[in-house]
């Protein structure tokens, strides 16, 4: 078993409950031990970093300081790192860590506002994709698969925060990434080659500028459907919410009609590990995954565009 300190962040216990449920469901079978970080708070990614640079640094830094005190977050025989499933949390925590490590003046400000010195430099902040595709690796994941998803074509959607900027992420190529694809392939499904793996989905404007979001999501869904995908997988709660819930306006913008299932990578892995759909919270998406489940059941192909 690989023991990780686990930072859920707000999404996984709110809008992305199904992400956490499916993560907890696959953790055991894949040999991942999750030790939730005691006392974790907001990472500073959503509202804080738009209003105060220091607040965004301090919130993230405080959580990393907490993590540094556990035996799981700093790589050793007793720990494999701090596992962060949410792409926004991951980006914020890593960003703050890099900034604090590099800037002495910032460390002083941090100590002043939090009342404790910066000590989170040794924490190995890892996105879930990094843990699955690199700590475990596709071969180790594939070895656990009991129900290969052969015949299913999946578009891996990385979004923006998981890969960029490379100065803080760096675990995959930011323009032609492959880690998520390697996990899709490990399930026995076929990752499709497609153009929109890293295009912006517009989640930041999901409430305020629906027309822009409709266009961006429409482009992404069109590209996935045209590439023959039966589903999209992602590892980001914002991307998921946006791609899953905006298929109506995206369809209007693109002049077509979408019903393309959007899954968390943990859910796809869960299916391939033979876990019941209910345990993976697959029924909580707005765009029905029924057709995908039926296809997996039947081993048959289907299309993501309504006919």
């Amino acid at each position, binding site marked *: 078993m690989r023991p990780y300190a686990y930072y859920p962040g707000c999404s996984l216990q709110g809008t992305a409950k199904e992400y956490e449920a499916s993560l907890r469901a696959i953790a055991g079978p894949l040999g991942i031990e999750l030790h939730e970080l005691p006392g974790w708070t907001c990472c500073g990614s959503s509202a804080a970093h738009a209003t105060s640079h220091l607040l965004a640094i301090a919130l993230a830094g405080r959580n990393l300081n907490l993590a540094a005190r556990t035996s799981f977050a700093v790589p050793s025989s007793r720990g494999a790192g701090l596992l962060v499933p949410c792409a926004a949390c991951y980006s914020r925590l890593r960003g703050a860590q890099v900034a604090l490590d590099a800037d002495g003046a910032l460390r002083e400000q941090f100590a002043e506002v939090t009342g404790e010195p910066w000590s989170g430099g040794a924490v190995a902040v890892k996105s879930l994709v990094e843990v699955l595709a690199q700590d475990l690796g596709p071969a180790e994941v594939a070895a656990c698969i009991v129900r290969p998803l052969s015949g299913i074509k999946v578009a891996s959607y990385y979004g923006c925060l998981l890969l960029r900027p490379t100065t803080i992420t760096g675990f995959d*190529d930011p*323009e*032609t990434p492959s880690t998520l694809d390697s996990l899709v392939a490990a399930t026995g499904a076929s990752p499709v080659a497609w*153009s929109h793996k890293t*295009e912006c989905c517009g989640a930041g404007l999901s409430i305020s500028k629906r027309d822009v979001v409709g266009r961006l999501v429409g482009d992404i869904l069109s*590209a996935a459907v*045209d590439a023959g995908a039966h589903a999209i997988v992602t590892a980001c709660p914002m991307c998921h919410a946006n791609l899953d819930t905006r298929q109506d306006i995206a369809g209007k913008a693109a002049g077509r009609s979408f019903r393309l299932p959007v899954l968390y990578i943990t859910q796809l892995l869960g299916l391939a590990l033979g876990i019941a759909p209910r345990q993976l919270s697959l029924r909580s998406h707005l765009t029905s995954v029924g057709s995908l489940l039926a296809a997996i059941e039947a081993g048959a192909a289907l299309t993501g565009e309504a006919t």
Partner: protein
Amino acid sequence: MPRIGVFVCHCGSNIAATVDIARVMAAAEVMPGVVHVTDSKYTCSEPGQAAVRAAIREHSLDRVVVAACSPRMHEATFRAAVAAAGLNPYLLEIANLREHCAWVHRDRVEATAKAIDLVRMAVVKVARHVPLTTSRIPVTKRAVVIGGGIAGIQAALDVADSGHPVVLVERTPSLGGRMAQLDKTFPTLDCAACILTPKMVEAANHPLISLMTYSEVVKVEGFVGNFRVTVHRKARSVDTDKCTGCGTCYERCPVKVASEFDLGTGYRKAIYVPFPQAVPNKATIDKDNCIYYQRGRCRICERVCEAGAICFDQPDEEIVIEAGAIVAATGFDQFDHAVYGEYGQGRLPDVITGLQYERLVNASGPTQGKILRPSDGREPRTIVFLSCVGSRDEHKGVPYCSAACCMYTAKHAMLARERVPGARVFVFYIDVRTGGKGYEEFYRRAVTEYGVNYLRGRVSRIYQRGDRLVVAGEDTLLGAQAKVEADLVVLATAMVPAAGASELAQTLGIGYDEHGFYTEAHPKLRPAETNAAGIFLAGACQGPKDIPQTVAQASAAAVKATQLLNRQSIETSAIVATVDAAKCSGCQWCVAVCPYGAISLVDRQGHGAVKSVVSVNPGLCQGCGACVVACRDGALHLLGYTDEQLLAEVEAVWQ
């Protein structure tokens, strides 16, 4: 006691604005040995030099300190002035009050104090100078030009037309280089072949030029005026005396290989002439792809060759050429755009480079001049050009500007509009840089007469949608996203030095920068020379250039080479290392560190015994001083920079 004159230069206001000249003069007057101090607005001007000459005579000076700019700038000038007044030119020392003081400081009081220190150091050093002499070495009257593109051809022709023999060495089977691959040339739109081919033929037929194609320089020994250049001539497997260039062999050869000359847009055979106007028009067998060499059978070319020119057992040769001067003209390669994942990583077939596009529009190219896209051979209706791919990109490419791309992209866009009636043509750019005669006018024509759409902004992504490409970027003038559906995308990839350029620089013993471009001796005043005497630079091997600049530099390099070859003998530098044979233990550490191969071991007779000691060849020695530092015995000294002279300077600073 020496009689030293100190000449303090204002350099207009360059020095005088920061350094108090009067105080420097007052301080100099009381320095030991100084008998005359004066100043001048510009000491390097003719009146300034005349004042130096007059003062030497009037005050019987036997040492001179000029406190002015860097010795790299005017040491030679003042040595000549001192010599004109009858003094040994090495009884001069320059105190650098400009680059080392006035230009790098702001505080006038402190700068003046430092200037006084610099003058004091020069005074104590020059007091210890002794007259130095130079020797003369003969010059081999032949030049070797490395690289048979337009730069090498021009340099070879210019040297040969001045009456000196030239060996022109080219790595590929034909002369022509990059220019031979081009279609038309800016800013006049005349065809590259029409102006290049006659020069190729002229070079081949010139009585004083010997061509060595399919050959590479592998070793360079010797020194200015006396180089020994070893050339490896690869076997063509064809007897060039017999081959008539009739073409029967490559018509019948069964093996198709992607053509290097067409940059993969077309094919050649395993026996081939790279392009129809090749010089020499002789076939070459590509052994890596020839069935006979790989599997021991076929020999069709041998059977069909009426001239009996095929010669499978022809050996490679090593040929040594004695030469007085070398011109490096190795040109450029294209930056590999595979690092751009966002542009398809080099995997989208309809995303091509500017040089590949040249082959497509070229009448003798794989499509006979029709613009057809590689994926399906269809004529593109919308063509998008991207400038600065690799250039001006510190993260993934190179930081410099490749100088020619803005102009050739304008040319490409115009050709697209000409060849494909009604085509929509877009250019994404960061800036349009058109410094050059007639260049801005040319670019304006592309916009106004040819209707090319220029969009200011970088492209963030190119992706395939169906059988078309989507080019997504930003129009920074409109502040809007720009998305163009295109059939063909052409990348203006950066110019990088030709493959193997750094290795050749090491063979030649010349410098190159962090990108691999060869370093000129002075960026403004000696652009065609290197720091190695007798080795000159022409064309894009020194930095990105277009054809006009390349030809200009090639002629400049030829003049510099000819100047050298015109001399019966050349004067060696007086600033060279010398050996105190009594102290030398023959350990040869100096031999190992000498970058110029100037030091060798010799036997020395004396007192009935033979002792092995080192000896410095003053023709090769460049006076760098590396051997002096390496010498454990203190047996090596650099004339003009002896320990005694330098330590006196150090002591003078602490006074």
